[in-house]
């Protein structure tokens, strides 16, 4: 089984945490496994958890009036669902498992409690969200949408 604490250490938001803090945070995660092709979360659905990919590979896609757009493919150490649990809006994209995948799930209020308790996590999250916006802008530019 993949060591959750090791994966958390590779995530920018949690990199600054000490060993004990990471161990405590890891206890708040639940693990779930997904078969290849399984939809992990679907665009437009209720957001209740933040996800970290522990093993395997996922594809993020977004439906729009023009059809389905592939956003990104990611592997261990990537994460998704942070926006929905912060702003209480439906899932912004669909994420599906490309291979057998294991994810760690952190529930909405457990995630928010960590954000409130540790400004370092919140600050790192801002950088992550900025990077997401830049990626989307680049993609839009490439597809002529901007």
């Amino acid at each position: 089984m993949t060591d959750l604490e090791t994966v958390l250490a590779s995530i920018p938001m949690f990199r600054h945490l000490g060993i004990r803090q990471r161990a405590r945070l890891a206890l708040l995660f639940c693990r779930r496994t997904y078969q290849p092709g399984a939809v992990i979360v679907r665009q437009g659905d209720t957001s209740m958890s933040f996800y970290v990919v522990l093993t395997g590979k996922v594809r993020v896609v977004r439906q729009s009036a023009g059809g389905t757009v592939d956003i990104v493919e990611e592997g261990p150490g990537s994460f998704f669902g942070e926006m929905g649990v912060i702003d209480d809006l439906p899932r912004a994209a669909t994420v599906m498992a490309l291979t057998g995948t294991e994810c760690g799930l952190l529930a909405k209020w457990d995630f928010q409690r960590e954000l409130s308790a540790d400004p370092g996590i919140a600050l790192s999250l801002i950088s992550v969200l900025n990077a997401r916006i830049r990626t989307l802008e680049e993609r839009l530019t490439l597809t002529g949408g901007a």
Partner: protein
Amino acid sequence: MTVGSSFQSLLRLWLKHSNADHFDDCTWRPGEAQWEKLSEICARNAGTEFGRKHHFDRVRSPADFQLAVPPQTYDMLAPYIDRMTAGEANVLTADKPLLFATTSGTTGAAKFIPVTPSYLHEYSHGIHVHTYRTFADFPDLLEGRLLVSSSNDEEGRTAGGTPYGAISGYLTKTQPGVLRKFFVLPYEICRIKDIESKYYLTLRHALVADIRGIITPNPSSLLLLAQTMRAHADELIDDIGRGTVNPAYLPAGAPPGLTAGLGPDRQRAKQLAACVRATGSLIPAEVWPNLRCMSCWKGGTMPLYLRKLPEFFGDVPVRDLGYMASEGRGGTPLVNSGAAGVLNVTTHFFEFVPAEQRDAADPDFLTGEQLESDHEYYVYLTTSAGLYRYDINDLIRVVDFYRHTPVIQFVRKGQGISSITGEKLTEAQVTAALLSVVERGGFDLDHVTACVEWGDPPSYALYCETPRLWPGDMCRQFVEAIDGALSAGNVEYEAKRTSRRLGMPVLKQVAPGSFTALRQERVAAGAPEAQVKIPHLSTDMRFGEKLKVVDEYRLASVDVSP
């Protein structure tokens, strides 16, 4: 902080310690929590006729229970329930029913669900968890008042003398006095049968109050409230200014409680009149500027109504009311996003059959922790109402997980499928097609129901109520767009259309008010008003006979667009 906010904080604290913390803790260990609930139900009812027959006293695990009790339908339980309604004790439940909840009557004949004290406790637990989270997210709700609709709890009495009706009315009637002052509607309103009177009197009470929250199961009720407000603005303002109630809306022999506290409020009447001068009408967003949130069903067929709410209520957040029925409460929404809620692991015992195994001889019965994301399941309930492994005929989908507990969303009733030529058209597909067509084409629709129309070939008739009659071009665009959207969403429908075994849909525009009249008919037949759902897909071949068609559009059959 005002008295209302302070009271809300205290109430929230009580809800946290009495219900919410326990529920939250159990989401870490749903299997254990479900076994605790099941063993409690079995222990309490081991001495009942059903409990003895199925050896509840020997149940030591969910697997034991599954071996001891076969899955039940209402028809299988009906002989027991009939004896209970006749007054016999200790049949399905050890505790005596306080009332029998009648189901909404959306499908088939009304069913009688025994509402025992322990069932009411289970049912209220889900409400308390929902309320706790809502209070946490909207901390000044009780600085104003809440508009909560309820339905008649006493439609009549059974042969044994127990009342039957809606749980919502019973909960309103038995509300503690300390809470009642925060609710704007008197209990007596739930007993009014005439819909126009009920909504007029609801507004007569609510328009003089600072409404902060609205709770009603069906979003179409919110639209009806807004439409009644617009249609009767002058009468309502006149009544408010003079402290009267137009007798046209007072039922014969109206109890004093129905109009209690409705004194003259000239200042409010002036404010409302100013709203009418400024906007041309009374609009909820204008008359209730402090409205913080609304709660209603958001799943299944509801999105078609939800999309119209902003026109009347602005951008007020809407939280799903939860997957619930008279038979039980399945999920509790804890956030505004989407239409799903966390499985009520502390409320009833739940089992699930994968959708694809519904008709299998020996389907897998799964428990909550065995469910998978994005999969669809049929729900089986075991509750303190004497429903054991009860097939509620609801299809749900797992949309997320909260810790180890699935987050579920109602999809549709099981029988919401129509198949004339093997197309297996579901209500969810009709709703999705309608939503996509309405959003892309800008069609203004109030209500729609599709149902089979026999012919050569057979086709689907779309009974539509629109604010104004559509011209021929618009009818053609709508019919073609719906046909295309149904084909895109259902390959069997597309194949049957291509092979011309199914004809092009037929558009039948019905007279204004037709669907409200249908709703009134259901209420008169005993369905709880707040819960009446007119389906988007009806399998009742005579559905159209109840509606007055004012225009019919039939396009010559063409192949489906590629």
